[in-house]
């Protein structure tokens, strides 16, 4: 397809490997023990409300949002609290977590859920519903949705952009949601339309999902909303909000700014579905679609898993490993984290679990920088990763900040492209945390 929109600067074409695109979402088995972290979102961890021995029910509040940027955490299954412990999250940080032994009856699952009418609610009440039900962005950054959808006083939302790009290789969760939950997404969009009152809503979908483009376009036509579907040329990282906005609106969010600076709000399409469930059924966010795939997985699948499910359980459900994996990744392969412990739980931001073979990883020996410039051509933010890396390596953090280090969103284009296999993203992460720690400006 020619003439499709995309962003211009940088970007790469990693192999797609979306083998689960044709697989319907299935409910995952409920494991006997779940571990629910209090930190599943950007911001402050939720405050734990239970203690060992407590009986808990499905959808009960386990942790209360602590502060403005924080989110409620709900109990995914009925059962008993066995232990409150500290665990490592995939990102490497620590979090308090509630270990629950599954027992008893579900209050919601398998039962007819009551539908609530939301049309008479005002914005404050709608946002309150999102806050209560612990909604966070499901695209990866897990920013609390009730905060994101609060329009600052005096500004107006022109465009609401819905992210159906799913540019990370392997992942197909959003793709399946679009195919299977189209009507629900539409209802979610109506709710968001009411909250934000944008002039138009645009759904961006990459051209490798023609069935989703067709389905969403049909729905958009008869929706009665100012809703359009924009097919996008395949390019990573188009799912990043800055690249997506550039692709669909042609405008650049200023360095250091938020999409609101150009009158836009961006939301992931899976989040729209969660908004629908939270508002229409008052259902807390306690499960999500996870793509379990990778060359080492016997039967890759899209599973709807409860938050707190150990990834071991999901991998076993997919037939286990057919070959020994070289890495287990939570999230997509470009920005995801490796985990070394199969008891690591699924959290709200877990879009995928990948068991990758050595061949898929394509690791090679690190050499000196060749000065080939591939990282520079790949960087969608117009940075010079090799020079930034050297500045950080030499401890010159202020030079790195001046050269735009904070514009880096760790999308991985540079590291993917580097023939010398230099851990460029690792360098950027180090540079950011060191300059924070040393208060360099």
């Amino acid at each position, binding site marked *: 397809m020619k003439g499709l929109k995309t962003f211009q600067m940088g970007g790469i074409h990693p192999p797609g490997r979306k083998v689960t695109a044709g697989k319907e979402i299935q409910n995952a088995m409920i494991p006997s023990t779940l571990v629910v972290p209090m930190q599943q979102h950007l911001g402050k961890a939720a405050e734990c409300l239970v203690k060992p021995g407590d009986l808990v029910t499905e959808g009960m509040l386990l942790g209360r949002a602590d502060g403005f940027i924080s989110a409620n955490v709900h109990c995914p299954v009925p059962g008993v609290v066995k232990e409150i412990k500290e665990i490592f999250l995939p990102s490497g940080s620590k979090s308090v977590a509630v270990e629950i032994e599954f027992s008893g009856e579900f209050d919601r699952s398998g039962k007819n859920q009551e539908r609530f009418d939301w049309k008479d609610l005002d914005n404050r009440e709608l946002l309150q519903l999102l806050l209560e039900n612990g909604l966070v962005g499901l695209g990866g950054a897990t920013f609390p949705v009730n905060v994101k959808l609060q329009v600052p006083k005096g500004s107006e939302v022109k465009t609401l952009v819905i992210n159906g790009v799913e540019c990370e290789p392997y992942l197909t969760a959003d793709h399946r949601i679009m195919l299977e939950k189209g009507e629900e997404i539409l209802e979610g969009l109506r709710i968001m339309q009411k909250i934000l009152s944008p002039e138009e809503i645009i759904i961006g979908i990459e051209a490798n999902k023609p069935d989703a483009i067709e389905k969403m376009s049909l729905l958009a036509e008869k929706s009665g909303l100012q809703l359009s579907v924009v097919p996008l040329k395949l390019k990573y990282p188009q799912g990043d909000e800055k690249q997506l906005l550039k692709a669909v609106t042609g405008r650049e969010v200023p360095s250091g700014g938020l999409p609101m600076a150009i009158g836009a709000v961006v939301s992931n399409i899976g989040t729209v579905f969660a908004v629908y469930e939270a508002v229409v059924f008052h259902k807390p966010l306690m499960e999500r679609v996870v793509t379990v795939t990778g060359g080492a997985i016997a039967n890759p699948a899209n599973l709807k898993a409860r938050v707190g499910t150990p990834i071991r359980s999901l991998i076993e459900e997919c037939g286990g490993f057919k070959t020994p994996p070289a890495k287990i990744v939570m999230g997509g*392969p470009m920005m995801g984290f490796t985990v070394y412990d199969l008891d690591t739980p699924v959290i709200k931001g877990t879009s995928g679990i990948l068991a990758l073979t050595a061949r898929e990883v394509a690791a090679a020996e690190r050499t000196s920088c060749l000065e080939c410039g591939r990282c520079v051509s790949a960087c969608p933010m117009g940075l010079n990763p090799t020079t930034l890396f050297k500045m950080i390596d030499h401890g010159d953090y202020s030079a790195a900040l001046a050269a735009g280090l904070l514009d880096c969103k*760790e999308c991985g284009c540079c590291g993917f492209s580097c023939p010398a296999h230099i851990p460029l993203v690792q360098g950027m992460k180090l540079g950011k945390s060191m300059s924070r720690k040393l208060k360099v400006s």
Partner: protein
Amino acid sequence: MELNTDKLVTVSPQIHHPASTFSIMWSVVLCLVPAGLWGVYVFGLRALLVIAVSIVFALAGEALAGYMMKKRTLRDGSAFLTGLLVAYNMPVGVDLYIPAVASLFAILVVKWSFGGLGANWMNPALAGRVFVFFSWTGSMTRWSLPRTWQTGTDAVTGASPLGAIKSGILDFSGTVSGPAEFLEQTGYPVSAMGQAVANWCESTLGFASDPYTWDLFLGHIPGSIGEVSALLLLAGAVYLFIKKIITWEIPVVYLAVFGILVWVFGGNRYGAGLFSGAVGFNLFSGGLMLGALYMATDMATSPLTRKGMIIYAAGAGFLTFLIRFFGSFPEGVSLAIILMNIFVPMINRFTGPKRFGVEKKGEAA
């Protein structure tokens, strides 16, 4: 179901482009092999000896430097490639200590004194060649004749086409319209193949061409071992383009700028006026193809961005033209490229990418 946690934890990205330093270097070596085999065919087995000496000394230099710096770098292929390129820039009859010195100079002085792979600011193989060229000019300009010429004499060495023109044109009293005619009038030999191709073009395709340009294109000329066959150098480069190891900017702009300058001003020295230069003859002669495709494109010593590469390549094309037509050497490619290498840090400084969401142009905000 348990995991071997050894080496499991890495920072994103978790997958990688299949290219590596290793694969890039050895791909370039592979693409250079046909041109080298041609050199062995037209100049005899001694070419192989020169190639072997160059490579062995390049590897020895790399091993020594690696030993001193406690780095193991022999496997990455970059030293092998440097040695190969040094050999390709040598006449076949060169005294064997010359390629040895060139390789050692390239690896130890040009590459490792700045920190090894990627840290050098001048193309090591070219710097090595230029160093020995000025040190032993006699040996470096004694060209053996290709075995495919029928000269009818016992001569084993002679002038390269560009050398013959440069040294002969000043004393020449006749009138000619271009380099091919000049060579013809001075009795410069042609190969049977070049003559046959030219005849075939004329009789079958009805398009007139001179056998000298065909000899240059195919590689039936006196010259350095690896530079003579423009055809095979281009064939190898096709693979590098497909694999995206080299991009179009440097070779295309280099050759285009040089070609246009030759077309506009190249006829001048024959008194033929503007827009009459022999473009094909000049593109395929000397080390231009080897330089534009394999040496100017060296990653470490060329600019980072597309804009920078275009400026760099245009400069190299201009300087090559200047040296070839107005300098005292018949050949300008090596000097043009290493002169432009010197400008690369400055070019990089002024051609950084435009930052996303930043209004003001220029790098480092």
